[in-house]
């Protein structure tokens, strides 16, 4: 079975500081990983994805994520946070080997960037 965990319900960071939103996953084979962001009363928006290749993936709005196979993690990062980054962030995973599986979403992490 595949699963994804986001160990922090809430992350607070000051504007201009670096931010990290954590994600760990569990799959039988190789993972296919996504990050999405959700603003109030809106649907989820795609930020970035990892399939294979470079462990550091760059995405929209200056976000990047680092894939670490040994730690089964895919943490979302940004060098300098903006107040407008405040939102709900979801990590999603699918097992590339078990093609019958659909994406599983984590519970979400609420990011608050303080001015």
């Amino acid at each position, binding site marked *: 079975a595949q699963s994804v965990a986001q160990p922090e319900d809430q992350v607070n960071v000051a504007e201009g500081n670096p931010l990290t939103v954590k994600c760990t996953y569990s799959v039988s084979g190789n993972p296919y990983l996504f990050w*999405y962001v959700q603003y109030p009363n809106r*649907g*989820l928006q795609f930020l970035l994805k990892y*399939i294979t290749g470079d462990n550091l993936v760059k995405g929209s709005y200056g976000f990047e994520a680092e894939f670490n196979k040994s730690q089964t993690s895919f943490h979302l990062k940004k060098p300098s946070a903006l107040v407008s980054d405040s939102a709900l962030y*979801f990590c999603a995973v699918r097992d590339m080997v078990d093609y019958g599986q659909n994406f599983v*979403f984590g*519970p979400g992490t609420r990011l608050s960037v303080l001015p």
Partner: protein
Amino acid sequence: EAGVAQSPRYKIIEKRQSVAFWCNPISGHATLYWYQQILGQGPKLLIQFQNNGVVDDSQLPKDRFSAERLKGVDSTLKIQPAKLEDSAVYLCASSLDRDSPLHFGNGTRLTVT
């Protein structure tokens, strides 16, 4: 490109009533998903269509929920009869294929009283 359209945005009904949600995916997207997002949780897949065929409905409560995607474009999700625990945001998403990023609509917020 136009995004995924959903209606209505909000719906309030009493338990045991029926409700239907509509979704129009991005043009050309073969795969369409319905998700249920309960407050404080991540989206949970209810049903996935590939064109007009059902690919995965393993988590759809089939005694009360139904969905269809006629002609492989628009889709409708119905709940009949509704229960209090159905209160949630219902998100529709579409993608070019199963490996492409999902494009979500803004959702329908359902409140069952």
